[in-house]
């Protein structure tokens, strides 16, 4: 600890500690998945952090993980002070975190952990209790302390002001002087803006607020960090989940700066479409393939991936619709064997069923997968499924984040999009975020269903504006010649132009 000199020439421990905080903040990582980088790596050492939230929101799990990770990963002794539930009840509740295998007893035996049970406490005994806590902190040289909960302490006081004094004078200074980082749990009533007595937030150095709300019939959890002194914490309200590995916070999906534009195009895998796009697709661009069900969007996307796989490029297929094995089976039917060793084994799939209100999980995992695989070709199948399930803002953030990754890493991407009707172009509102829009449509030709392809948008490149017929053959999509002498193709019911009909009639041939 470095001490600074006051103008009078005297140095106090408190001054020294304050200067430490200002000049060189030591961070205490929580070890909780997705949380630490929201707060620059951890809580400032010696801070009192208020962990506030609704009942059942995961405050105890968060705090216990903080202690457990301190013991198991950072070799930091810790104390759990309980004013609410006894040791057995707590340990029993922690069993649900089966993957963590929290065995606090082994650290108790090593003298690194202490569980202090003050479940029955009165106002008269509060000073003794605080004395015991301080004594144990010093004895264990504890670096982490959890007090569960301030709400229970406050209930022991007849006057709220007394609780405030205790909180301010004892809990507010004690952690700093002994460099113990303290999480103090506080109950927040459902719908309330403040914790328990409403004063804890002002005394604490930081506040982590856990909330639960109903989102599309699902109880959604989110946390925010409205206050954390000396830290530029992420301001957004972030979703989190509790599973058998504890809490996982889903951080905001970031964006990356775009890199230098690549001018060499790559093939879409569909020869005719490459011609329509004047050579193919630029790396770092997104092609939206839109069309009604059955028009061949997934086939086109698989063909795009197969082309990359054949060239030895890493490819990633993110599917929110068809399961990966079904896609592999479909690819196999066209002769694209993604499992072939040495040929097409560089194709990775990420599949997930999107659940209403819980899209943050697949979004995060998909973004994580992109980062890990570092693909040259990427497919998102489909953007319209996001529209159906996710919130508009969440979808936009995900697509924007994915887009920035695509631009930054020079990934050639295909997004599929199911049109809302037989004749509409797109089903989602991401058309402004993509570089190329290709529309696949069903058209009626002589009482039969045929397919047409047209490039609606091709930013930064010239393209063939013609409407062409295409077939899905044994080798995938084959684009044919432009419709000639035809009109109203995009209406779904193509017909001949008068001049074409005139020519056809007077040629004398039966057509």
């Amino acid at each position, binding site marked *: 600890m470095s001490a600074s000199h006051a103008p009078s020439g005297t140095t106090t421990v408190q001054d020294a500690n304050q200067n430490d905080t200002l000049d060189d903040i030591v961070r205490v990582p929580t070890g909780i998945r997705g949380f630490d980088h929201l707060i620059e790596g951890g809580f400032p050492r010696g801070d009192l952090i208020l962990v506030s939230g609704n009942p059942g929101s995961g405050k105890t799990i968060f705090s216990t993980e903080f202690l457990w990770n301190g013991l198991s990963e950072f070799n930091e002794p810790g104390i759990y002070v309980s004013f609410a539930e006894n040791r057995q009840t707590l340990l029993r509740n922690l069993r649900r975190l089966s993957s963590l295998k929290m065995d606090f007893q082994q650290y108790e035996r090593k003298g690194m952990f202490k569980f202090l049970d003050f479940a029955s406490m009165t106002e008269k005994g509060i000073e003794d209790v605080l004395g015991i806590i301080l004594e144990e902190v010093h004895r264990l040289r504890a670096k982490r302390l959890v007090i569960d909960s301030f709400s229970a302490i406050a209930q022991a006081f007849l006057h709220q002001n007394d609780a405030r004094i205790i909180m301010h004078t004892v809990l507010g200074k004690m952690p700093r002087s002994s460099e113990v980082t303290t999480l103090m749990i506080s109950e927040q009533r459902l719908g309330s803006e403040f914790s328990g007595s409403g004063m804890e937030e002002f005394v604490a150095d930081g506040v982590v607020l856990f909330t639960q709300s109903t989102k599309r019939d699902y109880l959604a959890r989110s946390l925010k960090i409205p206050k954390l002194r000396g830290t530029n914490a992420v301001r957004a309200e972030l979703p989190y989940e509790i599973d058998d590995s504890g809490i996982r916070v889903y951080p905001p999906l970031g964006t990356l700066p775009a890199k230098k534009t690549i001018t060499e195009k790559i093939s879409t895998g569909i020869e005719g479409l490459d011609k329509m796009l004047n050579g193919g697709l630029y790396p770092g661009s997104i092609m939206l393939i839109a069309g009604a069900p059955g028009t061949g969007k997934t086939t086109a996307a698989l063909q795009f991936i197969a082309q990359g796989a054949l060239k030895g490029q890493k490819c990633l297929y993110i599917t929110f619709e068809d399961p990966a094995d079904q896609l592999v089976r479909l690819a196999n039917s066209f002769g694209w064997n993604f499992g072939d060793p040495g040929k097409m084994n560089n194709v990775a799939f990420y599949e997930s069923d999107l659940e209403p209100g819980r899209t943050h999980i697949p979004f995060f995992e998909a973004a994580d997968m992109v980062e890990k695989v570092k693909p040259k070709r990427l497919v998102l199948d489909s953007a319209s499924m996001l529209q159906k399930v996710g919130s508009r803002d969440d979808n936009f953030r995900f697509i924007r984040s994915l887009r920035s990754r695509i631009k930054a890493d020079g990934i050639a991407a295909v997004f599929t999009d199911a049109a809302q009707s037989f004749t509409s172009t797109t089903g989602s509102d991401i058309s402004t975020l993509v570089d190329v829009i290709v529309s696949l449509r069903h058209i009626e030709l002589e009482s039969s269903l045929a397919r047409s392809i047209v490039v609606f948008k091709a930013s930064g490149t010239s393209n063939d504006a013609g409407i062409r017929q295409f077939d899905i053959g044994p080798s995938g999509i084959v684009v044919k010649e432009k419709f000639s002498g035809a009109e109203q193709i995009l209406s779904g019911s193509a017909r001949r132009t008068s001049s074409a009909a*005139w020519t*056809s009639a007077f040629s004398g041939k039966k057509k």
Partner: protein
Amino acid sequence: MISQTILMRRVGIISVPTLLLAITIAWFENLDGIFNPPFFIAALNVSLVTAVSVIVAYLSAKSYLESGLSAVVLLGTGVLTYGVGLFLTGIAFTTNLTIGVSIAVVSCILAGALQLAGSSMTWKGIERYKGRRQLRLAASYGGAILILSLFLFMFETGILAAPFSIGDVLFQAVFGVAIILFATSALMIRAAYSRTKSPVLFWYSLALALIAVGIFGFDVANDVGDMTSWAGALANYMGCLLFLQSIRTSRSLPLPNT
């Protein structure tokens, strides 16, 4: 219950013998009365014949430029010649009946020959495609208008005497040839329709047949504006309307599956 399409076709088919019968009755009965107010025939010809011929010629030109099919440019030129010829006829009638009749005969014989050439290609299914389409089209359409204008100029200035008068043998003989040309063309197109079942050809063949009937009415008329010539004019105007019907059906034909 018959559909509207079938009903229309039946009316179209019946109109040919009906108007032929009407002309024949008017001819044999030798009904009196002349109705030929100034510019009236010219106005009708412009609105019902020339305008329609321009539309047919435009569509044929578009078709030819896209496809290069020789038959359509011949047929288009034929219809345009007929329309422009009757327009000039209407103008000439205001000053000199003989000149008007002569222009009508020249345009009918020229239009009939072009229709026969185009129809025979359609009938035989000859798909002759030629290059330099714009030039050929300009020469064809421009040439037809130029020839008729030259004739009018020569007749009006007296460089060439107007050779045809209503009722004389030469007039009837040449008009008779024109009738044969149009009627043969109609039969050829009808034969092509039997093979292709194209509704465009169905209406086009009826239009040609009605024009042949109309020319017959002019051929046997005693004077411009008599009952026989008006019966012929009615067949003529109806033929032009069937050209429009032919175009209308071409706008609703489905695209074939390739």
